[in-house]
C-alpha cells in the first residue's frame, strides 16, 4: 500500500469564508488516514462542524482543496460524494413520517438495491447498533427514546456501507448514562467496521475515549493533531485548558469517591 492509498481525506490550504466574508476556517491542512477515527475537538464556534461539512460538500471551500479518496471534492458529483460518506448528526434528523425500517432503507433503495438485499441489510445494521429488527422496524421516530433515535441515525448512516463516516456530536444531546452506553458500543463498533470516521465533539473525555487521533481546533485554526496519549502529555498552550479540565473532573471524582466510601 502506498501513501496515497492510506489517505482517506485531505485538507490542503483550505479556507472557508461566509458570504459576509467572515473567515470560519483559516488555512487548514489536515490528513485523515484510512480506517482511523479522527476526533475534531474544540469549543463552540471553533470551526469543527464547518470542517466536517466541507468534507461532504454541504459547504464548499472558499480557497484550497478538500480531497476525498485522492480526488478534490469539487470534482466529485456532490450526490455521489455524499452517498460515499455516511452522515450522523446530533438530533439524528430522522424522517418523522418514515418508520425505522424506511429511514434506514432509503439510501440503499435509492441506490437501486434489490428489495431483498435492502431488507437484509436493514436487519444487519439495526442488529449492529443494538436494535432488534422485529421490535423496532415498524416504529416511528417519535416512538423512540433519544438514545434509540441516535442508534437509528447511525444505522441509517451505515446502511449503504460507505467507507467514510462523519459524525457531528451524535451523542451530544443524550443523558449521561445513555451517552456512556453509546460511546462504549461505538468503540467496539468502530473496531469491527474499520471505517474512516471523522467525529466532532466538544467533550475531551469523549475525544480521548473514542479517537485514534485528536485534531484540536480553535477559532478556525487547527492547533495540532495528537494521539490521546500525546494529548494528555502535551504542554501546548492550546491543549492545556482541556487537559486541566479533564484532570480536574477526575480529581473531583476521585476525592469525592474516596470521601463517600470511607
Amino acid at each position, binding site marked *: 500500500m502506498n501513501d496515497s492509498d492510506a489517505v482517506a481525506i485531505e485538507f490542503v490550504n483550505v479556507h472557508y469564508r461566509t458570504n459576509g466574508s467572515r473567515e470560519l476556517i483559516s488555512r487548514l491542512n489536515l490528513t485523515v488516514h484510512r480506517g482511523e477515527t479522527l476526533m475534531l475537538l474544540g469549543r463552540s464556534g471553533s470551526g469543527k462542524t464547518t470542517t466536517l461539512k466541507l468534507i461532504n460538500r454541504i459547504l464548499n471551500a472558499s480557497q484550497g482543496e478538500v480531497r476525498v479518496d485522492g480526488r478534490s471534492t469539487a470534482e466529485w458529483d456532490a*450526490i*455521489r460524494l*455524499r452517498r460515499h460518506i455516511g*452522515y450522523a448528526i446530533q438530533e439524528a*434528523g430522522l*424522517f*418523522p413520517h418514515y418508520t425505522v425500517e424506511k429511514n434506514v432503507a432509503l439510501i440503499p433503495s435509492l441506490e437501486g438495491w434489490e428489495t431483498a438485499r435492502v431488507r437484509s441489510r436493514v436487519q444487519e445494521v439495526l442488529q449492529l447498533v443494538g436494535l432488534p429488527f422485529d421490535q423496532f422496524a415498524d416504529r416511528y421516530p417519535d416512538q423512540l427514546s433519544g438514545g434509540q433515535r441516535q442508534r437509528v441515525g447511525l444505522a*441509517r448512516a451505515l446502511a449503504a456501507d460507505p467507507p467514510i463516516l*462523519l459524525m457531528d456530536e451524535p451523542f451530544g444531546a443524550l443523558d449521561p448514562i445513555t451517552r456512556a452506553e453509546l460511546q462504549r458500543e461505538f468503540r467496539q463498533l468502530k473496531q469491527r467496521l474499520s471505517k474512516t470516521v471523522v467525529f466532532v465533539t466538544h467533550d475531551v473525555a469523549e475525544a480521548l475515549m473514542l479517537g485514534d487521533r485528536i485534531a484540536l481546533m480553535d477559532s478556525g485554526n487547527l492547533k495540532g493533531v495528537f494521539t490521546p496519549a500525546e494529548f494528555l502529555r502535551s504542554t501546548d498552550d492550546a491543549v492545556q485548558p482541556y487537559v486541566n479540565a479533564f484532570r480536574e473532573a477526575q480529581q473531583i471524582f476521585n476525592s469525592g469517591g474516596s470521601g463517600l466510601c470511607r
Partner: protein
Amino acid sequence: MPVIAFFSVDRRQLATLTGEHLWLVGISMLIVVAVGVPLGILLSRRPGWRGIVLGSTNVIQTIPSLALFGLLLPMPWLGARADRLAILALSLYALLPVVRNTYTGITGVDAPVREAAVGMGLTPWQMLWHVELPLASPIILAGIRTATVITVGVATIAAAIGAGGLGEFIFRGLAMVDNSVILAGAIPAALMALFADLLLGLLQRSLVRVRH
C-alpha cells in the same frame, strides 16, 4: 314553507345549477392546485420572490369579488365565455392560501431533518418527494381546504356575469325580492361548502394520522 315549495317545484333547475356550481368550483380548484403547489415549491427554492408573489396574490384577495369579475370582462378570448372568465377569477382568488401554505409547509421542515437529507445525498427532487412534500402535506391540504370553501362561496358571484351556478337563484331572488328563491341558492351553496370542508378535513386528519 316557501323554501320547500320552491324545492319541490323546481328540482330540476336546482340540480342543473348545483352541477354548474360544482363544475366551476372543481375546475377552479384543479387549476389552483396545479398552479399554487408548484408556485409554493418554487418560492421555497427562491425566497427572494416571496414578497412579490405572496404580495400580489394577497392583493388579488383584497379586490371585492364582484369587481374582479367585472375587471376581467373586457379580456379577449376569455370575455366571450362567461364560465372561462369565472374560472379564471375564482382561481386567482383561491391561489393565496394554497401558495402560502405550500411555502410555509416546505420551509417548516425541521432543520436537522433537512440537513440529514442533504448530507445523505438526496437530490433536490428526492428531497422534495421523500421529505418535503410528505411532511408539508397536512399544511398544504389545509390551504386547499380553505381555498375550496372560499371558492364555493365566491362562485355564487359568477352568476352576475352569466356563468351560472347557484348564484342564479340568489341574484334572481334579489331581483324578485323573494327570500325563498335566495335561500334556494344560498342553502345548497352553504351545504356544499360545509361538505367540502368536512371531507377535506377528514383527509387532512388521515394524513396526519398515517404517522402513528
